[in-house]
């Protein structure tokens, strides 16, 4: 039997747990909404403006970097399985070094442009 059947069952169990807890809440918890209670909480002051506001775009840099490096990093896992093979081991070490080295240039570029520094 595949272990992923258990994984699927665990996901199902998690969903059931959430559903059951919400059912219990429905039974146990009171519900007395008032206008003030349903208002957006901005530290006790009346909410200003709309629900959404522009935030700093610099967070996007980290998402960019992560996407690139995550694509990069997943190749390490198959590499882990072939590193000990007699005919591929040493060659794959060089190959992965070149591969990662090239991508690290991107990190250096971002760092040199000051993207990792807060202004």
């Amino acid at each position, binding site marked *: 039997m595949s272990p992923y059947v*258990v994984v699927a*069952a*665990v996901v199902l169990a*998690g969903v059931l747990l959430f559903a059951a807890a919400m059912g219990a809440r429905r039974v146990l*918890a009171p519900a007395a909404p008032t206008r003030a209670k349903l208002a957006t*909480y901005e530290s006790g002051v009346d*909410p200003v403006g709309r*629900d959404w506001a522009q935030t700093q775009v610099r967070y996007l840099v*980290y998402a960019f970097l992560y996407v690139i490096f995550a694509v990069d990093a997943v190749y390490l896992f198959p590499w882990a399985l072939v590193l000990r093979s007699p005919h591929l081991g040493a060659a794959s070490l060089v190959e992965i070094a070149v591969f990662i080295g090239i991508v690290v240039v991107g990190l250096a570029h971002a760092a040199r442009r000051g993207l990792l520094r807060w202004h």
Partner: protein
Amino acid sequence: MSPAVEVLVRTVAVLAAFLVLPLLVGQTEHKVMAHMQGRLGPMYAGGFHGWAQLVADGVKFAQKEDVTPAAADRPVFRLAPAVGLVPYLVALAAVPLSPGLVGADAPASAVLVLAATAVGILGTLMAGWASANKYSLLGAMRAAAQLLSYELPLVLAVASVCLAAGSLSLTAIAGAWSPWWLLWQLPGAFVFLVAAVAELQRPPFDMPVADSELVFGAYTEYTGLRFAFFLLAEYAGIVLMSLLFAVLYLGGWKGPLSGDLGWLWTLLKGFVVSVLVIWMRVAWPRLREDQLQRLAWLGLVPLALLQLALTGVWVVATA
């Protein structure tokens, strides 16, 4: 045992561990943190030293009104706690306590754990955006940026261990472990520990929920049981990361008398790591947002890459 019964038993066991271990860690945190601050912590619920405090908290949370703000995006807001919680449950299922004692012994369980924790980010992002609260949105942004930034060192550190063991299975990794790894994989272990604490958004990496700036970040608008689920996810995360650290870097079930009681060793090592995580929270101040990101990209990532190079060269040289 028929397959269906086996699946059921395993699932129930994982669910039980998921509901019990976080409570243990939470109670330990109550007590350790209190005594580190010269206090006693909860003393009443349950009688002896307030052992049932978290159970009482759970009962209390279930009876609290669950408010969905009027401006919120209702379906996303209400679903977010589940998205934050279930990934940790899945990840916990893949962590072995001993060679025979594991929920789902997947051949690539190390990657499975990483993939599951990566999905957890979505729960925070959904919560922050759907709350229709600017603080929440900013908190979610910070949280997601932090989780992404620290996910990478985490992946690299785990990859280094996989490399050292020549396998992607956590069971096999702990099986290949020897005390020599304590030195050899030390930089990786350091990177893993720091990145794991950051993944959990625990102090000193709790900028996304910085109370003085963002109220409670992405979770500001949550009340009652949904809020409790986010808390449960945090403590389940501590359990998961501590057990992972124990399995990856401390040899899991290896130790004296580990024949039948190996699982106890894993739990014990994991417990020690979680106490360390709690200790960090008490002792250290919060890092600023830019320090967080610099630490990840200019500190941990290069260190993890060095560890990878070290591991790769050593494996090839000794193969």
